[in-house]
């Protein structure tokens, strides 16, 4: 359609405003001095302070949960991608009995409610002394990170033309050689997308982190923020500051990779 309908432009403006305004408000409020927070601050803040940010890092040691989130999300993503790429290759390029079953199984695992896994995992982790540890989070995280990676990678590899691999096979490469020399170099955009999306999901995760960690040394960022306690009232200033800090890496990733993210989301979801 060449004519851009006027009402749509207005609608777009309203919608975008509606989605962005809360974020703006949170950021603006995080810079508002404590006293003003419990009034309604003006739309454009005149009084700015970094008190909340300072308190966040000096008093609450917020860099600890940030580090924890980074370690857990990073390790999980690395593992999920490596294991997932091998699995995705097998599922898309090799013919074997039970292939559909495995694909269905991976899909099924990605659909189950996380809360179902909490009781047994809790007991198992406790028995293994892994409560409140990095391993004790990475392993449960793989329960959703691995199927997610596999799903995204399968979607991507399916779009890669198989003829180039056939040429490699005829040229004398074994399956593994073809995988290493031809498929992996050509698939890295898809792998990158899968890694980004997996990382975001891990960074986001709340339930497992809440259930399997005990204190700030191992809390991830979302859990730490949710459990902030103030002396007299809810410490909104610090909570908002922490929210901004937690979201910054996410925003950076989204800005840098938005095209990949959108492709990964839509390809993975809209297969067909």
């Amino acid at each position, binding site marked *: *359609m060449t004519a*851009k309908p006027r009402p*749509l432009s207005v*609608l*777009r403006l309203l*919608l975008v405003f509606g*989605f962005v305004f*809360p*974020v703006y408000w*949170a950021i603006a409020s995080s810079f508002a001095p404590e006293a003003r*927070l419990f009034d*309604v601050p003006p739309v454009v803040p005149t009084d700015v302070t970094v008190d909340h940010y300072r308190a966040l890092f000096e008093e609450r040691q917020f860099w600890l949960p940030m580090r924890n989130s980074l370690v857990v999300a990073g390790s999980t993503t690395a593992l999920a991608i490596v*294991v997932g790429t091998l*699995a995705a290759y*097998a599922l898309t390029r*090799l*013919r*074997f*009995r039970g*292939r*559909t079953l495995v*694909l*269905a199984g991976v899909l099924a*695992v990605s*659909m*189950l*409610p*996380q*809360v*179902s*896994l*909490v*009781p*047994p*995992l809790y007991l*198992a982790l406790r028995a293994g002394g892994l409560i409140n540890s990095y391993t004790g989070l990475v392993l449960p995280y793989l329960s959703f990170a*691995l199927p997610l990676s596999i799903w995204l990678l399968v979607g991507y590899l*399916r779009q890669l033309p*198989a003829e180039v691999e056939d040429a490699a096979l005829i040229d004398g490469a074994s*399956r593994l050689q073809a995988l290493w020399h031809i498929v992996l170099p050509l698939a890295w955009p898809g792998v990158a997308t899968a890694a980004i999306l997996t990382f975001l999901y891990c960074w986001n995760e*709340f339930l497992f982190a*809440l259930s399997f960690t005990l204190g700030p040394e191992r809390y991830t960022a*979302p*859990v730490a*923020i*949710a459990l902030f306690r103030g002396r007299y009232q809810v410490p909104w200033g610090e*909570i*908002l500051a922490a*929210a901004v800090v937690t*979201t910054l890496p996410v925003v950076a*990733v*989204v800005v840098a990779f938005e095209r990949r*993210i*959108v492709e990964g*989301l*839509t390809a993975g*979801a*809209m*297969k*067909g």
Partner: protein
Amino acid sequence: MSPAAPAGNAARVDVEDTRLAWGLLSPTVVVLALVVGFPLAWTLWESLHVHDLRMPWLGYPFAGLANYRDAVADPRFRAAIAHTAFFAAVSVSLELVGGLALALTMHHATRGRALLRVLVLLPWAIPTAVSGLLWRFLFDGQAGIVNAIFVGAHLLDRSHVWLVDPTMAWVPIITADVWKSTPFVALLLLAGLQSVDESLYDAARIDGAGPWRQFVEITLPLLMPAVVVAAAFRALDAFRVFDLIYVLTGGGPGTATESVSLYTFSALLQRLRFGYASALSVIAFAATFVLGLVYVRFAGKHLLRVDR
């Protein structure tokens, strides 16, 4: 040269493939068996026993389907199901409508598409728990800007304490979920919109159809598959909601906004009724499984298609 059995010999290429395939799949199978398979099996087993960590003197007696009977009769569980169904129905509907509107506006945008996508992706990318807190702040009884706006616009006569009211508490919860998930739906629908052949609209224009007719006769029908996929995805997620409600209301006031996941969690880690919580988990899992089957039934032909 003895004639080899055709099937056996011909299958050699496939046999090598098979061995390699299982080799490549083995780490996945091991990990998933470890963190999903055994735990689920354990949950099933556990749900058939009485196991209350606060009453260890009861031991670990086999209870058959007692936990399930209790669950079905449990008014709090039934309330949780009702809450979850209500939440899912309202959120998903709003997200579909909002997502469609957003997708349409983005589809017709001529400039700044990338910026649009980034801005719209932000709510989705922010950790759910964090966005929950954000909305709690926005709806706060004293400092919340929502109250300021409503009172200022004379829609309310005075500030409301949203999160304390059993019915009104749903407003921030649903608002937060719609805010976070509409962009995701919009992106899925946008991809669907972009795959519609432009020349169909031209043909319709020549045939005399105006913008509304074009939307109803061309866009909507061709977008249906994408809508179904988006709806199924969101329904599945909405059914499992935990983070938002935990952070916004903790299930309260009382248990007025408790979802199924939240109740299971509470039974588990707060009241330590492992056997019972396991039964709840199994029920939740079974329900999700059924929903999933429905989803696969509609969209699965595409998902599970294997090409070679």
